[in-house]
């Protein structure tokens, strides 16, 4: 049985905000199946007593001094904007028409 269905891949693509063609979904579903089979080797290797590692060089609560330092000007911050209006990023509509 396949570890992952085409419908599941389509759902993941929606979650990841990537539009995909039917052909892409078909191809990716078969690839994902192979990849998942391969990476599932990690399951059951470590016992319940083994803690997870998220960062190899552990550090906690790293702060920097709360001082004002120079930052980007509005012009610099907006320099890569696909669209702008005055000193703001202009984006497509977020809410529906109504």
């Amino acid at each position, binding site marked *: 049985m396949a570890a*992952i269905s085409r419908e*599941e*891949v389509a759902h*993941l*693509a929606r*979650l*990841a*905000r*990537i*539009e*995909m063609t039917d052909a*892409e979904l078909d191809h*990716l579903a078969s*690839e*994902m199946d*192979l*990849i*998942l089979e*391969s*990476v*599932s*080797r*990690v*399951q*059951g*290797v*470590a016992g319940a007593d*083994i*803690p*997870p*590692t*998220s*960062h*190899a*060089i552990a*550090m906690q609560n*790293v702060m*920097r*001094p709360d001082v004002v330092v120079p930052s*980007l000007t509005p012009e*610099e*911050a907006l*320099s*890569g*904007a*696909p*669209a702008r209006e005055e000193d703001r*990023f202009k*984006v*497509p*509509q*977020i809410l*529906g028409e109504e």
Partner: protein
Amino acid sequence: MSEQIIHQTAAQMSADLASGSVTAVELANAHFDRIAAVDGDVHAFLHIDREGALAQASAVDASRKAGEKVHPLAGVPLALKDVLTQKGVPTTCGSKMLEGWRPPYDSTVVTNLKKAGVVILGKTNMDEFAMGSSTENSAYGPTHNPWDLSRIPGGSGGGSSAALAAFEAPLAIGTDTGGSIRQPAAVTGTVGVKPTYGAVSRYGLVAFSSSLDQAGPCARTVLDTAMLHEVIAGYDPKDSTSINAPVGKMVEAAKKLDIKGMKIGVVKELSGDGYQAGVLTRFNEALEALVAAGAEIVEVSTPSFEYALAAYYLIAPSETSSNLARFDSMRYGIRIGDDGSRSAEEVMNMTREVGFGKEVKRRIILGTYALSSGYYDAYYGSAQKVRTLIKRDYEAAFAKVDVLVSPTCPTTAFKIGEKSDDPLAMYLNDVATIPINLAGIGGMSLPCGLAPEDGLPVGFQIMSPALKDELMYQVGGTLEAALQSKWGKPLYASAPELAVK
């Protein structure tokens, strides 16, 4: 004259600049001439910043002329991987998503390079967002290996490694998440170092997998790599994972040429089956050279390494799916389909469909899956536990030996196109480079000869404990000197001549 200049080491260029026998502007121009002559075939560069580089070079020349004290590498040219921001200079990460983007700020690596007066020639090609082992995943076309133009230069930093091997630059910057500095170095006969995680600031390094990403120095010799390491490393408050400790003395270590009494561990799990015969031949010869230099070789077993590749291909894609969410077409990068009728979400979906390539999409989907509720413990959680086991394997090994060694890659450079349709075969290239990223420790690749069966470079990997990066320079420098005295010349000097246009 320019032919001779470009074949020199960065250390020699540094000495010539100091003595006044060459200027920084002459050096930069000699490299621009070389790039114009060979890069049509090699395609190491995505962008050449002639104006910026010459302005930097002139400033260095003026400082020297005025008798000001400058950094030894001031005026030496460098190729910068296109994943690091440089203010006003296009930064694409090899992706359509960032086509035309000019960052409004410098990465800390670039700030440090500029401070030292290192002249940045341009930006080098790479697999899209640093995901790949061949540079074939670049949206701007592949880079070709200068040793054989039909072969891959490694990846993701294939542009940087090819630029060094083709004498288009004596220094380069790479980034290494699972081997993207070391594997390209191995297959192009150059040197590359992934420093201890946190040694070099990630500020301005476009994130792929934040807990694994690390920028590092690349060059044609161990000493040149050490000199560059000292320029880019150091504490940076702008990166919360930056290590607040003094930078070790890498240059001094590279010049030591003494490893008497050192214990060197050969990792049993990173050799044997699946490794090309010629790779193992040259690797074993290098071990003999280390013994002749007075080191003791012992075999070390690291049983959890067999799960490293699987753990990596869960952890890295998981972090990718989160990191690459920032490419939403709202603040920078391309935007597709904004015709006034579509919603932000529709525009986002269309932009990410067009902007990302196949491998990036594959990893985002894989990571989204591994992090989804119901699968988290089985995949991401299990992978993080394996990461603990790998770290413990290293700790146990380093209790017995000073450094660990292995071949950098199972094979020499493969043909362009050979593995591009088989992601699992491609991922296997990283089997020997991935473990150090998971453990956060340092790793170097340096050339140890040409495989007898195909005449292509073989890489030798040295792994050192966290925060002891100078050990790999000490061992690497000694090995390089021993091998070069046997060969009569450096390996890079045997590279075939490229057609000059």
